[in-house]
């Protein structure tokens, strides 16, 4: 047997240990990026081989938490890919406007930047008071950061640029205050979002959603897990509800592709059929 095949057994064994010890199942994550992340953790932990992680993770919860952070922390920014937000404002907001009350699920919200970006645009469209936004992630540390609504002022310039490209009509600075050199989003925005723990791999349906946003999460899943989660979204969405994936994520390769109409190929915006 070749060494790389043995390394695969090591990784399978590690993932099995994690699943049984901590109830997190990574076995249907896209394998190649998962391997890169495990290698990244090995370097940080000063280890050489995946099997060396097994006893550490089994007996030291802190090592597992670092593993989880390594796997779950995604780079996220305010108004990343502003053309998506513009598409949202122009195509989906008018439909949301026809409902007296509507629900949005932002799945895999990480540290919350996109959820706040969305809340700002809803407020500008006069829709925020009718919206209930659920933003979920499987990393509790990320959720804690999101709940604070405080972000480094460093990226605010890029955020402002994105806000304007996304069709922002006022000044982005109207929505936050300086907070010891960082920025803090207004309470009205913060209170409009319910940040909560939810693991797409094992937790259930979030009911009756008008809009589900899950961007750049699917890329970390294999096709089987993508199908599973897409089914979860299909069951969570109302008839004619919207689904937004990352720009390079598509339902085209999924067995559930016929459950949705494609509204925007470029921005991966779909609408559930009747």
């Amino acid at each position, binding site marked *: 047997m070749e060494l*790389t095949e043995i390394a695969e057994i090591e990784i399978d064994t590690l993932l099995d240990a994690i699943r049984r010890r901590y109830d997190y199942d990574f076995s249907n994550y*896209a*394998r*190649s*990026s998962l*391997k*890169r*992340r495990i290698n990244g953790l090995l370097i940080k932990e000063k280890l050489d081989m995946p099997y060396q992680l097994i006893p550490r993770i089994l007996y030291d919860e802190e090592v597992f938490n670092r593993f989880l952070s390594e796997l779950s922390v*995604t*780079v996220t920014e305010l108004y990343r890919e502003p053309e998506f937000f513009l598409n949202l404002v122009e195509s989906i907001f008018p439909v949301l406007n026809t409902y007296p009350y509507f629900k949005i699920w932002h799945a895999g919200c990480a540290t919350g930047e996109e959820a706040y970006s969305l809340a700002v645009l809803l407020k500008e469209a006069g829709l925020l008071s009718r919206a209930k936004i659920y933003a979920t992630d499987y990393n509790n540390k990320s959720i804690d950061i999101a709940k604070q609504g405080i972000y480094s002022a460093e990226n605010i310039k890029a955020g402002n640029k994105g806000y304007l490209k996304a069709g922002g009509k006022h000044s982005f600075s109207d929505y936050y205050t300086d907070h010891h050199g960082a920025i803090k989003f207004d309470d009205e925005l913060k209170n409009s979002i319910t940040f909560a723990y939810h693991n797409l791999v094992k937790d259930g349906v979030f009911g009756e959603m008008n809009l589900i946003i899950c961007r*750049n999460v*699917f*890329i*970390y899943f*294999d*096709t089987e897990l*993508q199908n599973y989660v897409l089914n979860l979204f299909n069951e969570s969405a109302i008839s004619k509800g919207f689904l937004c994936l*990352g*720009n*390079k*994520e*598509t339902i*085209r*390769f999924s067995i559930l592709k016929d459950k949705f109409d494609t509204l925007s190929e470029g921005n991966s915006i779909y609408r559930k059929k009747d």
Partner: protein
Amino acid sequence: MKNTAIEVKFIAIGVSAGGFEVLNTLVTQLPADFSLPIAIVQHRSADSSGYLAEHLDISAKIKVKDVFDKEPISPGIVYLAPPDYHLLIERGFFFSLSRDDKVNFSRPSIDVLFESAADIYRQACLAIILTGKNHDGAMGLAKIVATGGTAIVQNPGSAQASEMPIAAIKKVPTASVYTLSQITAYLITLNKNQKK
């Protein structure tokens, strides 16, 4: 030229500064019946559009496109890593994308593509480093060779930016060093030999 007896099933190309011109030359000369999949990492800014793929697709005789996540790898198509995503190969021969940290200050990174391509295709992988001003791809090329694959580097003297080819040759001294027209000829010959 090095023998093409080993059956190549996948071609990975890494290119940075000066890439537009060399890709334009290389890709447009591939014949319509080119039957191998080619994946290209061209360093470009995070907010660049799909212009590169569109332009090459119009000029080339074979299909050129930006990759979608979990897209199956088909023969005779040139796949480009989309801006701001790493491009990886998965078991079962399809692509995946990732937004993980930059590698060598780059996303997409050539090392990321080459390392995962080496994992999956092993000796059936051909990897090529073209013009560029950094060191991305050198480590990945070393892994391609370590798993039995074939390494080609553009002759630094003939490359618009020589740093990347020089770094690759330094890391992989056994790599074949060819000019761009030799590389094109190599690929065309490889394609002919595939058909026998």
